[in-house]
């Protein structure tokens, strides 16, 4: 599958990464190499194979509906790049 610069741009946007023009060629060629490595998979017929999402073949545990956490806003917001009035601040969200 061809991976070109327009794909790089699209994927970078989906991943919210900025790829500069200077980097774009190298990124494209590196990822093309990686995809080539990945494409070795295509040589095997797996039509009848059941996918394995997880090495653990067990079911999900549930927890009781109990409140176990307490309010730690003051402490946790100290980690934030920008917070005010109990809110995390970000550049204006335009909907």
């Amino acid at each position, binding site marked *: *599958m061809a*991976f070109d610069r327009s*794909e*790089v741009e*699209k*994927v*970078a946007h*989906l*991943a*919210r*990464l*900025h*790829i500069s023009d200077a980097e774009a060629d190298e*990124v494209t060629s*590196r*990822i093309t*190499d*990686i*995809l*080539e*490595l*990945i*494409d*070795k*998979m*295509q040589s*095997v017929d*797996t039509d009848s*194979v*059941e*996918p*394995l*999402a*997880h*090495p*653990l073949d*067990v079911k*999900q*545990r549930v*927890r009781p509906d109990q409140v176990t956490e307490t309010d*730690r806003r003051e*402490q*946790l917001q100290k*980690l*934030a*790049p*920008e917070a005010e009035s109990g809110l*995390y601040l*970000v*550049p*204006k*969200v*335009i909907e």
Partner: protein
Amino acid sequence: MIEKTAAELASALNNGEISSVELTQAYLDRISAHNEQLNAFITVCEESALNQAKAADEKRANGDSTPLLGVPMAHKDIFCTEGVTTSCGSRMLHNFIAPYNATVVENFNAAGAVMLGKTNMDEFAMGSSNETSFFGPVRNPWDLERVPGGSSGGSAAAIAADLCGMATGTDTGGSIRQPAAFCGITGFKPSYGRVSRWGMIAFASSLDQAGPICKSAEDAALMTNVMAGLDIKDSTSADIATEDYTAQLGQSLEGIKIGIPKQHFAEGLSTGVEQSIRDALAEYEKLGATLKEIDLPNNHLSVSAYYVVAPAEASANLSRYDGVRYGYRCENPVDLEDMYKRTRSEGFGDEVKRRIMVGTYALSAGFYDAYYRKAQKIRRLIKNDFDAAFKDVDVVIGPTSPHTAFKLGAKTDPVAMYLEDIYTIAVNLAGLPGISIPAGMSDGLPIGMHIVGNDFAESRVLNVAHQFQLATDWHKQKPDLSGAGS
């Protein structure tokens, strides 16, 4: 004293040969003497370490003889440690002071271990050489021009250079075992689900597993006793009874069947490594084991499948680093999109970005079946290969890495770097326990032997490693740091 194994340190502490405070100070001195060259630690917690040591000494004086009480250790900087910077080797989290402890950290605290500090690592555990760390590469104590392996390179180098008594690591595709091999020490990845992932910063959720990085298989067993167990905070933590992982360490290997995967002795394996592993296998025969060649026909696809599954999961796991609630944020973002893109582009290094891109692409519309679903099917085939093998053999043994530690900067091509993990990756895809132990030297550099067991056969893997260490002294070889220290 500092060169001793954790088990030996524990008995020295018990016998009153040394106090935990003295021992801790000795390691702190060793760190200040050698960390500048090795760059193994990102953070050293001198004061809290000495406090913990003091508390441990008091407990011991009051009759507490918990096995690892007062033994100084290091945690890979991927484990959240409350009140201590937890960077994951990234600029993104260079200022992140974790507000809680990982379960692994809690467990070691409860066992009375002393935390000396946090070790360097490849950024977000993505790398096989420790060169992707925001805090600079770690150097291999055996040769400062060489890499220690990765991603748990800081922990491996710290153990090899006796900067701590034991350390933790994490292994997604070989990140405990490969650096253990490169640094001539013991590194154990338990079965997926054996050790809680709560508080361990995620790279690839279905592959990540924490484990010991230490000086002997016996230490690995002692550490596994502390680390293993069900944790309700981690839905993928296994509800399978733990055992005393030291209990089977005395068992004879008489009659045990060792599988030798022909794919692990094929093209690409260096002759020095091959010779050492074949010698080690001969040693096992002397110990009563029988060898049997086995076939892992899909092993050659493991790297390909891994480089879909791991980046795909990582691409989502790393979306939380957006500069909103913690960690790095770019200067003066003009709008939301600019904040996201610059924060992430400046906060992540090249390899991390590359993997996010690959994972994003593999999951994107139109490619899911060809990549992600296909990789999961290959994953099934790889698991089936092991299931078939373990019908005939008790453990599978081969080299951990195709060669010994390479030079810093030698591998600039990502694909070449990815192929470093050709022998270890399949074990993560299948979720099996695997250990790397020193099994020889080539040109002054250590060689690692890889021992893999069936699901939750931790005890057997540890004993097979331990019996080898009883019969050989490769694990006792130490690098000469006399020229490297100040």
